[in-house]
């Protein structure tokens, strides 16, 4: 996913923390010119959004917002971070931002607002579709298909497959899967993971069962590193 652009450079510590919490990439710029050249070098399709802090220099921040919004494809969503005494400056500038946050704010609040904004603008951090070889997962409709055949999955099977497919090539222990996928009190314990993997493999069918690999005495891995588009290099 594309990074967000932040004003000014260096970015406000609380904003940096929040962005990292959301797992969103970003570049900092102190001028529209700097932002433009960064956009050329570090994005393919343009900025995924922006966080502009007006606390230090209101007028330059507003100019920065204007630059991002008054162009052919306006940058959105844009979160404006301001001080309390700047609240009245927001009047009649509704077109320059999508949401705002008043300092002092905790990183958690900024992170929550960012996440919500990203979700609303449809450019949220997680993609709507996960594709891996013959497997397609539509995260919006909760439907999964392999080689064009719709899979009838229970909720937990779907969740496990989604988690694994979102991290191709990575090895997970049963305990990790149990805590990340189940996460709530369950009667099964760690062996439950084996049971669900078995069920998933049965539903994927013999031809595609190997999508979920057993890693001896460790746990499970989705897809082989050899042909996985994930971060692991080919041997």
């Amino acid at each position, binding site marked *: 996913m594309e990074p967000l652009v932040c004003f000014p450079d260096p970015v406000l510590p609380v904003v940096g923390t929040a962005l990292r919490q959301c797992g969103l990439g970003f570049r900092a710029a102190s001028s529209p010119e700097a932002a433009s050249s960064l956009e050329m070098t570090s994005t393919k399709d343009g900025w995924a959004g922006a966080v502009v802090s007006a606390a230090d220099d209101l007028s330059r921040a507003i100019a920065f917002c204007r630059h991002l919004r008054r162009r052919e494809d306006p940058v959105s969503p844009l979160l404006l971070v301001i001080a309390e005494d700047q609240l009245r400056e927001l009047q009649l500038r509704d077109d320059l931002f999508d949401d705002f946050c008043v300092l002092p704010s905790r990183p958690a609040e900024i992170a929550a607002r960012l996440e919500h904004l990203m979700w609303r603008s449809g450019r949220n951090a997680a993609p709507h579709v996960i594709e891996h070889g013959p497997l397609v997962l539509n995260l919006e409709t909760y439907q999964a298909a392999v080689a064009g055949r719709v899979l*009838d*999955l229970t*909720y937990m099977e779907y969740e496990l497959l989604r988690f694994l497919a979102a991290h191709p090539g990575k090895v997970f222990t049963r305990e990790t899967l149990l805590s990340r996928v189940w996460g709530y009190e369950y*009667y099964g*314990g*760690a*062996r439950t993971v084996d049971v669900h993997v078995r069920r998933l493999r049965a539903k994927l069918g013999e031809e595609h069962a190997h999508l979920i690999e057993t890693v001896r005495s460790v746990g499970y891995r989705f897809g082989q590193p050899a042909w996985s588009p994930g971060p692991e290099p080919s041997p």
Partner: protein
Amino acid sequence: MQSQRDYVLRTVEERGIRFVQLWFTDVLGTSKAFNITPAELEDALDDGMTFDGSAIDGFSRVQEADVLARPDPKTFQVLPWHARDETVAAVYCDIFNLDGTPFEGCPRHALRRTLERARDAGYTFFIAPEVEFFYLADGDPSARPRPLDAGSYFDLSVDDRSSEVRRRTVLRLEEMGIPVEHAQHEDAPSQHEIDLRYTDALTMADTVMTVRLVVKETARHEGLYATFMPKPIAGVQGSGMHTHLSLWHGERNAFSDPSDAYGLSDVAKRFIAGLLHHAREITAVTNQWVNSYKRLVSGYEAPVHIGWARNNRSALVRVPVVKQARAESTRVEYRAPDSACNPYLAFAVVLAAGLQGVEQGYELPPEADANLFDLSERELRTRGIRPLPGSLKEAVDEMAESKLLTDTLGEHVFEWFIRNKRAEWRDYSVAVTQFELDRYLPSL
């Protein structure tokens, strides 16, 4: 919880599902269902569906007949056996009182309570049953049972109709994500067995209900009748549900101890001791019909005496010998249950008996090395080996005295069950059977 609900609702919408079956089980283990439309499903997920429980076995109460069926969204599944234009899905329900408290007559709650007890003690409980049943040639169960074939154990017959139906059943189960370990022809003509891969006990109880439905449904489609009746045909083996049990501590099998001569940990030994000690009390639940006791007789590989052994199939508890490298598959096999039990209640009482042994530190009696069938009554007595109850009446009398069973099943189920089973015994006692007519009428 919210996302589980959304998952169900979105799937119903995306797959064009017209009806959703709400499944639940009465106290005697009979599947019950009612259909609702997708429009009603949202309400059902949020608030449950009210229905009159008084018509359902074990659900009847004096004051208030209405109960709530609340779908467990984790169990939602699209059924594979309907035509594409009328896709049907099913979801298991828990039954609640109108005030939101768990309904005492709901077998799922009884099992869940026992599983919580195990969890509080640090254990998760895994279970793998072997479900036996017969295929009969007539689709109409009122006809005299007629086997389909004359095959037996592991027979390889090329053109065997019942094996074909069984194969189709297994494929369908696999399609539903129910892994089958083995499926084979059993000893008796037309008798088959489906061994299920272990899961946690609640999932397995749901699965056993699904398996029975799929077996019957697939047979019906072929014009056959599949029965889980414990002893449908005299003179041949009955249908049991040998059940493999293990307790786990996280990722470690709590039954395994490679340094022990039997490969069994103290936990396993105490668990077996618990099963043996309470075997007579739990038999009414694991073998709940008059007919169940026609299976539990000598000569047909069914257990009759209370003992344990490694490679002795006459024992009530068998400890399968596992290879050293497969220590994690250490388990004990409880051989009394039949496939016509209520799996929720049967799993609950078996677990409760074993746990009692673990918690109270019961001592494991020596292994029954001889074939128990071959020992005389006196030899059995000297070895302190007791028999299982020989009839439903004996089993129910034993159960009625059991605190373990009152605690495990809860007052409501416990009392209803005993009342119902005493009535069944009464009906049986006053019946004049074919046996009596054949034996006495010509000469008396």
